[in-house]
């Protein structure tokens, strides 16, 4: 009961905002070309989502047809780039982070370079990425992997460095080898940090994918809203923005569900 009341109160502000927006564009207070009404956006959204051509059984299954809409294709293109870039960035950051966290020597070797590179926003790599990789998916994936790399790296390093020494003492007391110490104690103890890093990295990857699609690729959600601007399709721009928001929310929800499932032993996640 309480939960429903909570949900009901949560919907108040969005409804008010929607009503305000509706009034702005329908009362002629704002030019409807610049700010189309919510209904207009919704209509465009549906058109954007709907398959472009009528269903033709000779072209394949119904399910496949459902996915031929422009929005679905764009979303899948963006998702593909995010996942690939995230996988590459994390795949490189994780081993390096573990090494830097575990070994003072590795930390001393790599940390200066990392500290110099880390503050460079992934966006600043755009010119180089186009020079190096041309146009299309490669530069986009390169930028996304940079966006994912640093959050995962920094959190992994901290996670390994801050493993409570009492666990290591217990490990030594039980006779654990260095390898066992690493795989059965240090690694699991560092996972809450690593997961936090992955979640931040995924967020950054999602920001970078939209930007990179505005520059290097000719499909994807980021490309589509920039394209819509050329035609002054504000309704499509807004529809695309909401799609980006919902996809981002979906990804973050999956990440947080996954981590609370895998970290159900962890005290800090009891509330989350």
């Amino acid at each position, binding site marked *: 009961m309480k939960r429903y009341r909570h949900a009901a109160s949560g919907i108040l502000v969005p409804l008010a905002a929607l009503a305000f927006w509706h009034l702005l564009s329908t009362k002629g207070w704002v030019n409807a070309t610049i700010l189309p009404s919510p209904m207009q956006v919704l209509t465009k959204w549906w058109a954007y989502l709907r398959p472009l051509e009528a269903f033709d059984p000779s072209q394949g299954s119904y399910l496949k047809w459902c996915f031929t809409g422009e929005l679905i294709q764009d979303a899948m293109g963006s998702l593909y780039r995010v996942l690939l870039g995230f996988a590459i960035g994390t795949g490189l950051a994780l081993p390096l982070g573990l090494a830097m966290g575990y070994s003072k020597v590795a930390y001393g070797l790599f940390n200066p370079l990392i500290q110099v590179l880390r503050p460079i926003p992934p966006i600043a790599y755009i010119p180089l990425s186009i020079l190096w990789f041309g146009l299309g998916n490669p530069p986009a994936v390169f930028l996304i992997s940079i966006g994912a790399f640093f959050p995962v790296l920094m959190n992994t390093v901290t996670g390994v460095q801050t493993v409570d020494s*009492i*666990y290591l*003492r217990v490990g*030594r*007391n*039980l006779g654990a080898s260095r390898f066992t110490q690493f795989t*059965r104690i240090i690694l699991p103890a560092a996972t809450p940090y690593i997961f936090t890093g992955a979640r931040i990295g995924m967020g950054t990857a999602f920001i970078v994918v939209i930007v990179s699609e505005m520059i290097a690729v000719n499909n994807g959600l980021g490309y589509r809203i920039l394209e819509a601007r050329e035609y002054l399709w504000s309704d499509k721009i807004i529809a695309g923005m909401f799609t980006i928001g919902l996809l981002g929310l979906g990804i973050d929800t999956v990440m947080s569900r996954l981590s609370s499932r895998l970290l159900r*032993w*962890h005290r800090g996640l009891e509330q989350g």
Partner: protein
Amino acid sequence: MTDMTHASSHISIQGVHKVFQSGGQDVYALKAIDLEIPRGEFVCLLGPSGCGKSTLLNAVAGFSLPSSGAIAVEGTAVSAPGPDRGMVFQEYALFPWMTVEQNIAFGLQIKGEAKAAIQAKVSGLLDLLHLQDFRKRYPKDLSGGMRQRVAIARVLALDSPIMLMDEPFGALDALTRRNLQDELLRLWTELRKTILFVTHSIEEALYLADRTVVMTYRPGTIKRDLRVDLPRPRDVASPAFNALKKELSLLLMEEQNRHEQDEFRGTAVD
């Protein structure tokens, strides 16, 4: 030094010093400690904080070796931590990512025992410590007392002849504490381990130990090595118990006063 080792000693501590550097000065955490502990004896190290009792325990465990002197277990010098000297920590130190079962099994897996053997042993220990209903739980879902039972089971799984305990019941409420003390005595009677137990509670030491070793505040030396001959189960309200308690209180109070004077002078290091 081996020629001086008492043949009957399980743990032999001879002429042990432990020196720390503090503000450019040598601070003796331990000074000239001699202690012979026969097999199967329950010994409590008692003293105010800063008396080096934990330092001594850590030296026996092999976590931090003495600056000079010798510690031997079964005639072999201690040079590193090992599963022959299982340790129970005050903070429980259970692995939070492992269930109760997995925590207990971990030491056995390290030893490389067969799966079936591990399962049987873990099950036996769960029974022994009344933990069967909690086998699949994670430590965060357990009370302090339950956690310490798991920590004890984890050490018992190693089947080590020596159990080192560093104020294991210090963080528990009085009832849980008495409960676990009784449990520990039952296990000790059953399994006949040599136990070296650090505490700052006089009553705990007198309730548990065959022998209570009172240590002095910095430098840590042995002030009194008291044999407690009261029959078990001990009655904490009996006149004999209270006479010993009073005697130890006086000894401890002297050390506590020295500790406090040190703190007033601002020279205490912890």
